[in-house]
């Protein structure tokens, strides 16, 4: 088990170091999310009362789109110089690689969310009527839901033609229940109406189910030739 966690740790540390030095993923995500925020503010009239009703949807759609930008770059570096082939011939467990990539993406998307939240508050005059701290577990569960499936489907779309287009086509339909849960939980907290317990349980179930399936099937997809 120590071998597993150390491989995960090493791969994760490598990805974070690369990202820290290049800032490729985070910069493109940030700018993309910023554009989405601005475009949405033209489409809807963001006044405090109304924006509380729609913010849950806006925030998560913006994060989802931005996450796709980062997820598409997950394997870009490994394709150059056949690093991915080296992974495949190495005896390291494939699940460790998957976990490292998923954790890395989780970290990047979380950083993005942390940076974008103040912007949303400013641009959309957001003030939560419910307990705002509850947004944190919802955001964490939701981000993991997007990222764990996203990392898996990024591996799948790697094997297809026009892979950048393929990822959202695979990811969005499967993510619908998770998105519904995130959006509704966020809206419930912001408006202070309705319970979020069901949505949190649903998100947690979604996370557990798809984390297990991804870990089980990842090796098959990585080795598929």
């Amino acid at each position, binding site marked *: 088990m120590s071998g597993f966690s150390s491989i995960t740790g090493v791969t994760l540390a490598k990805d974070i170091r690369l990202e820290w030095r290049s800032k490729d993923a985070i910069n493109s995500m940030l700018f993309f999310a910023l554009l989405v925020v601005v475009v949405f503010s033209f489409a809807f009239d963001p006044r405090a009362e109304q924006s509380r009703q729609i913010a849950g949807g806006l925030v998560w759609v913006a994060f989802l789109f931005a996450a796709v930008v980062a997820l598409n770059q997950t394997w870009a570096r490994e394709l150059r110089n056949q690093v991915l082939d080296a992974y495949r011939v190495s005896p390291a467990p494939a699940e460790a690689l998957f976990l490292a990539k998923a954790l890395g993406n989780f970290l990047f998307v979380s950083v993005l969310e942390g940076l974008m939240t103040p912007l949303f508050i400013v641009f959309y005059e957001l003030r939560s009527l419910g307990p705002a701290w509850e947004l944190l577990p919802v955001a964490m569960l939701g981000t993991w839901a997007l990222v764990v499936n996203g990392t898996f489907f990024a591996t799948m779309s790697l094997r297809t033609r026009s892979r950048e287009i393929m990822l959202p*086509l*695979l990811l969005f339909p499967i993510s*619908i229940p998770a998105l519904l849960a995130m959006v509704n939980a966020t809206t419930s907290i912001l408006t202070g109406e309705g319970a979020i317990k069901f949505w949190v349980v649903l998100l947690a179930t979604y996370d557990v189910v798809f984390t297990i399936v991804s870990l089980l099937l990842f090796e098959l997809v990585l080795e598929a030739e």
Partner: protein
Amino acid sequence: MKRFFPILAVLTAVLLSYALYQALVAAPTDQLQGDVYRIIYYHVPSAWTAFLFFTINFVASVLYLIRRNLKADAVAVAAAEVGVVFCTVVLITGPLWARPVWGIWWTWDIRLTSTLVLWLIYVSYLILRRFSSGSQTPVLAAALAIFGALDVPLVYFSIWFFRTQHPQPVIGDGGSMDPRMLHVLLLSWAAFLCFGFLVFWSRYRLEVLQRQLEDAQAQESLLEARSS
């Protein structure tokens, strides 16, 4: 097996025409809805048939991953395609009926929404198959089929909760169905099942032949390359 194909074809033709007559002429007119209700004889059997084919796709995908049997993969492709076609019929006939009866084309009701999401998942499955090439396609597709199958209950529960919180104008089946109507409905389903399996069979044969052809061509070009 091949001998049964013409038998199934004739049976399908007979059943479909008999079911059409039964549905349009023989079945009693609905007291509340009038003749418009008759679309149920196409809508509901299509839905049942679509769900059956999606189930076949899932079972075949799991079988493929366990046994690595390419025939299971051919079954999965054929079942997914036929399932999507029937599901499309469901999604088109639904609004056609809903407009005169509910007064709206579409409502985000649980059954409508989950059928739509199911359709979306399987369309993405077909797109994946189209965009990936070579021998890895079956593995990727089978993995996606498993993801899709696990997603369906989550979709159902999420929409169920979403809609029970915000009630929508939904008309359920209400009381029990006239036994004559049920009879025609089941007859219609039998006809659709036969039709579905007929198309599925042809599609499966086509897929198997296509693969044999591709293998033969690949071998031929290999031999040519070696001799030149």
